[in-house]
């Protein structure tokens, strides 16, 4: 009875919003993963590590500029570039030699990279918990559907669609984007018409990692920035790109929305078993559509 009393229309509305805002973070991270999966065919287990580096870089940049609003905005803008730089080094020195390898080998390689990056983060930033603050404007909450909704989550609800539109414009309206899409479908043909596929791959990889870094920076004011963040997100990210359709950016969006909203509603309906809901839904979707909801490029 208590349960039914809590499930009211405003509660449903409020949880839908909360789920959507979580989905936006997940989308930013998984869209990058999906891009790397689609164009490079690399199941990058280290994607979560780049998300973690994004959050730690955001912490450092924010503190470098005094921890105020300026620090926050600069952290949000610059830390994805820090991650992009790290990923460019990794791509040019390591990944570019490995694209032709079997997926299992790539999986093992990126797993090893995840462990190495985890230790590097510990060496650079130490093991302490870190935290950054959003500017005053984003602190506190507004009342939506008779429930408190963090202002910062409203910001996430704006950023997520912006990233989606940006990615769409990039892949459909720019030459590099079109080449990357073509390379995802037929890399030999793209190479045959004289395009340097190696650099297309490098660009796609760096862009994917840039998004991981952006996700890390975006999430940093809401969580503790700590070693282990990579492990927390990577499993969810893989599940999302799998149910969405491997390598499909819109699949990443659909998967993130389903994941975020199910999780949020799960907490409302059966809070004791909320953890199970997103995973249960993954099982159902994969039984129903083994290749994911949207077209897989694999």
């Amino acid at each position, binding site marked *: 009875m208590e349960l039914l009393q*809590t499930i009211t229309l405003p509660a449903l509305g409020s949880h839908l919003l*909360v789920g959507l805002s979580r989905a936006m973070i997940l989308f930013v991270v998984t869209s990058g993963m999906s891009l790397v999966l689609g164009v490079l065919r690399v199941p990058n287990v280290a994607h979560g590590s780049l998300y973690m580096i994004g959050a730690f870089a955001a912490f450092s940049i924010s503190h470098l500029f005094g921890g105020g609003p300026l620090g926050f905005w600069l952290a949000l803008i610059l830390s994805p570039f820090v991650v992009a730089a790290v990923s460019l080094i990794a791509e040019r020195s390591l990944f570019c030699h490995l694209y032709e390898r079997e997926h299992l080998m790539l999986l093992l390689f990126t797993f090893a990279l995840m462990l190495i990056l985890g230790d590097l983060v510990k060496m650079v930033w130490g093991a302490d918990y870190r935290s950054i603050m959003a500017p005053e404007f984003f602190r506190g909450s507004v009342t939506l559907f008779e429930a408190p909704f963090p202002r910062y989550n409203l910001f996430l609800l704006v950023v997520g669609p912006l990233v989606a539109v940006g990615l769409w414009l990039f892949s459909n309206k720019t030459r590099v984007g079109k080449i990357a899409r073509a390379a995802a479908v037929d890399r030999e043909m793209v190479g045959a018409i004289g395009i340097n596929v190696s650099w297309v791959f490098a660009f796609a990889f760096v862009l994917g990692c840039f998004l991981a870094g952006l996700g890390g920076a975006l999430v940093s004011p*809401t*969580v503790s920035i700590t070693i*282990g963040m990579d492990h927390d997100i990577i499993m969810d990210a893989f599940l999302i790109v799998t149910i969405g359709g491997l390598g499909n950016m819109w699949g990443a969006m659909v998967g993130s929305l389903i994941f975020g909203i199910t999780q949020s509603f799960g907490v409302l309906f059966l809070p004791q078993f909320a953890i199970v809901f997103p995973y249960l839904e993954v099982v159902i979707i994969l039984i129903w559509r083994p290749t994911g909801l949207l077209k897989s490029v694999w």
Partner: protein
Amino acid sequence: MKQGFSVAGIALLGCLLAMTLVFLPGHAEARNIKVGIIDCYSGPAAVYGNDALNGFKMAVDEINKEGVLGGKIEWTKRDTKFKVDLALNMAKELVMREDVDVIVGTINSGAAMAVSEAIAKKEKVPFIAWISKSEKITGEKGHRYVFSTGENTAMAGKAGGVALSKKPYVKYWIAGDDYEYGHAIGNAAWRNLKAGKPDVEKIGESWWKPGEPDLTPYITAILAAKPDAVIFCTGGKSMTNVLKAVKATGMAEKVPIWIHTATDHAVLKPLGSEAPEGVMGTMDYHFYYPDSKTNKAFVEKFEAAYGQAPGFPAFHGYITAYYIAEAFKKAGSLDTEKFIDALEGMKIQSPVGELEMRACDHQVVLPMYLGVTKKAEGKDFAISTEIVTLTGDEVMPTCDEIKAARGE
């Protein structure tokens, strides 16, 4: 002939002297005490492992100036990476290869339980759990060879339960990390709250996976259920996530909240001004409380050595080293059984005053400090204020309860 006699005589005399030296009581014991440390030095929990180690090192340096039984305390550490199987292997290696006299550690309750059962009990090597918090370690699974110098979930839960039972709240919601520590704290708090105030009612529970980044849906669902108060059962990296979500939703202004260790400065400092005010929390150590001479001296020395204030793990590491040294001194020998006998009921002076290692369950009797988070004046982070000290007797299960839990 005379020459031969004198050579034989000298040889005999030499042998006799050597035998005497070997069998002299002092000589055999005049060696270093070897302590093997197993703890987490990588991953998110490393922050606790390092802090405990720093406290231990500081105490050992102090102790070694005088030495113990003619020797010194020497130590070696192993990184368990928060893994139970690694902790077991390392504890085994420390006993078999390093021949340690005592094992100490670890932040991971699962690892502490495993080492206690499979190594300490089986190999008869004393194991002192210094920061793992499962009440089972010295409770139902306790035995002669395991000790704890840290507070546990029974003590924390009882502190919360006792404190909350004095408040007027009736309808409670319990939420937290879905693993051993979260549930243990929740159960202990609820058990004691119900005992102190039988009319309380639990209107719901929710559990998330440890480290779950976005806890907003949990908070909004709890607020929708309109409880009188909320018990959050969390720690480590989840703690910051909870406090951030509490702050972002303004929950602390709407509903009273109790979280064990929410007043820990290791949690509040990184949060800075983002820490929610008004959250009730319990801790067994604050570097700024008690405001005593001994605590201040300890803190100053620690800050000088490591450049930061000691957290609760450092305090436990520190007292653990003193318990080891004092117990060996009292035993007068490096014999394990005598060490255990000496440790039982032993009292030492600590930064928070005199502490007793309870003989019945090998659990150190620690007071608990109940406080409320508030921005500190002149500091850029929140501290615990309005601190009420709950004595060890108030927060610990009785020896009879321990016996009952062990089925004795």
